[in-house]
């Protein structure tokens, strides 16, 4: 909740309405942190960093794939955030803005890394499995996620970014358009072609033949269970 005990907080409450006048709306906790961090409050910046760093790291990993530079990328993202926080106009959500900064840093990193092959230990690291799954299901699930990461890595950069932001991060096409600076229609087109490309890659990836079979079995078992349940009812 907003506090009302300081001139800064009071000043921050004035927001432009769609009609051009200003209304007094209480700031959220995060908005107050952003406002304080933008004025150079280190504690506020640290709080924002600790709140969002895992999300930034996950997004960077999803776009970069396994690489040894994830730490550096996350660090660079927050350095950019620190530098640009004063210019953050709160026209979008902080999370959307963070996505934009992360995407830009990832793109810069990939460009600079093209001539600098990085070492990675494991081509695709293990993914966390659902806690209630059986060991064999865990293994299958991990293998599927690995396969998916491999497919993503094969996609062209623009499509991959749009796909990751929409399908994995849950952003809307208009938010993605804002992040990557492209028209919404272009984003939708890229999403369409990204899905189509992934479907083709699924079909031509020998390592996924077993997975497709597994999915078929799972689907059959689930539909059988559903029909059984309907019969019982």
């Amino acid at each position, binding site marked *: 909740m907003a506090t009302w005990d300081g001139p800064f907080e009071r000043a921050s409450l004035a927001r432009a309405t769609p009609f051009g006048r200003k209304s007094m709306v209480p700031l959220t906790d995060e908005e107050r942190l952003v406002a304080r961090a933008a004025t150079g409050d280190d504690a506020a910046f640290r709080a924002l960093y600790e709140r969002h760093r895992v999300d930034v790291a996950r997004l960077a990993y999803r776009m970069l794939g396994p690489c040894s530079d994830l730490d550096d990328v996350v660090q660079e993202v927050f350095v950019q955030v620190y530098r640009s926080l004063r210019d953050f106009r709160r026209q979008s959500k902080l999370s959307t803005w963070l996505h934009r900064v992360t995407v830009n840093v990832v793109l810069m990193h990939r460009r600079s890394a093209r001539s600098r092959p990085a070492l990675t230990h494991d081509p695709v690291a293990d993914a966390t499995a659902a806690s209630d799954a059986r060991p064999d299901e865990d293994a299958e699930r991990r293998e599927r996620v690995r396969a998916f990461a491999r497919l993503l890595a094969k996609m062209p950069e623009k499509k991959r970014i749009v796909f990751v932001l929409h399908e994995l991060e849950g952003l809307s096409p208009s938010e993605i358009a804002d992040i990557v600076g492209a028209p919404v229609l272009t984003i939708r087109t890229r999403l369409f072609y990204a899905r189509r490309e992934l479907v083709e890659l*699924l079909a031509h990836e020998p390592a996924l033949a077993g997975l497709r079979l597994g999915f078929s079995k799972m689907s059959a078992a689930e539909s059988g269970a559903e029909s059984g349940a309907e019969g019982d009812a």
Partner: protein
Amino acid sequence: MNDALDRLIREARQDLGEREAREVNWRTVDERLFARIASEKQADRARFIPGPRRPWAIAVSAALAAASVALLVVVRGPTRPVDSASSGGSESLGAVASITGPGQLLVGGVPAARGTVVHRGEVIEARNVEAVIQWPGKAQWLAELGARFRLTRGPGALVIELERGAVEADVVPVAVGEALAVDVGSTRVAVHGTHLRVERVGARASIDLTEGVVTVGAPPRTGAVLGSLVTAPAHVDFGVFDPGAMIVTHDPARVRTAQPFAEASSVTGNGALTAGSPPRALPRPSELGGGGPPVAPSTGRQVRAAATSPSAVSTPTTTASLPAASAASPPSSSPAGPEETLAKAVRACMAERPRADNVTVSVTTTLLLEVGDDGAVQTARFDPPVLPEVNECATPTIYKVRFGRPGPLGVTIEFKN
């Protein structure tokens, strides 16, 4: 097929990157991030220029400031403030990281302290002190006893105009152009990376290049220096007004050993230099004079006298040298330590590469490592990069070895068939 893709997407949404994001070495990221931010803040403060005011207000402010400075000078003696912008808001080119010795470091004619920001155009003089100046992410350089130089900017590069004495620089390599240049007389030593020492005595100058490549030639009006390309290890002697008549030797015994900057800074994963703690120990007067046997300091690092002794000069083509943190380890450490194991493995991988019989391959690279608390390697990167096949070949060994302490580490590897 779409069902299969949707299922994959659902699972990836939950799992992909989740564990990796939580397993990031947050302690290291925190340290580096906030060190960089602190450094940027300091640079920002130094760049701050007051906005336009009314003339009478400026006059009053100037008079008050002058009175304050005069009072301070009377009370405390002249000292340059740490965050001074006395150079009129000119470009900041780093800050003093350490000063060691009984004398004074003068920046722009004013005694400086640790943290003092140095600006373009300022003359720096090390009067009976040694000082390390860091420009985060670009370079750090040591002003040796008696050194005097001016800092300027060339096209894209920091330029140290050396008037006398010696500077030793550790330079973060740049992909294109020159990272740093040292001007001596009418000669420019353009540094592409990474470690060198330039000394000027009267009309003569010498370069000790321990790592990387430099170009020696006349300063160009624009663009890069056109001159003689010298690769490490090398010792170069030349007249400061006659760079054409230089004498180059690649005999490692003639090359002065690099002074490690490990205590004053550390190299981050992306190659940036971050400020660390203070100063390296100043060699004792007896060591500086070269009289008597050198005494090893308690930190275990090499002292100047030992560095100048031919017997103390390492042979870079035979073993891995450790310019960063590991260089500080005592010489009695086991020769088959993890660094050597890594270097051997990488050299073996390089040796496996097919090549023509009449081709000599010479590779110098630094393996930059981030070691976790358990001693295991968290990240590894070759700088400059090596062939992907060598990467792949060396990876199992790199991640198998265990180090005695966590933190960033650099292992220089040299290979020649």
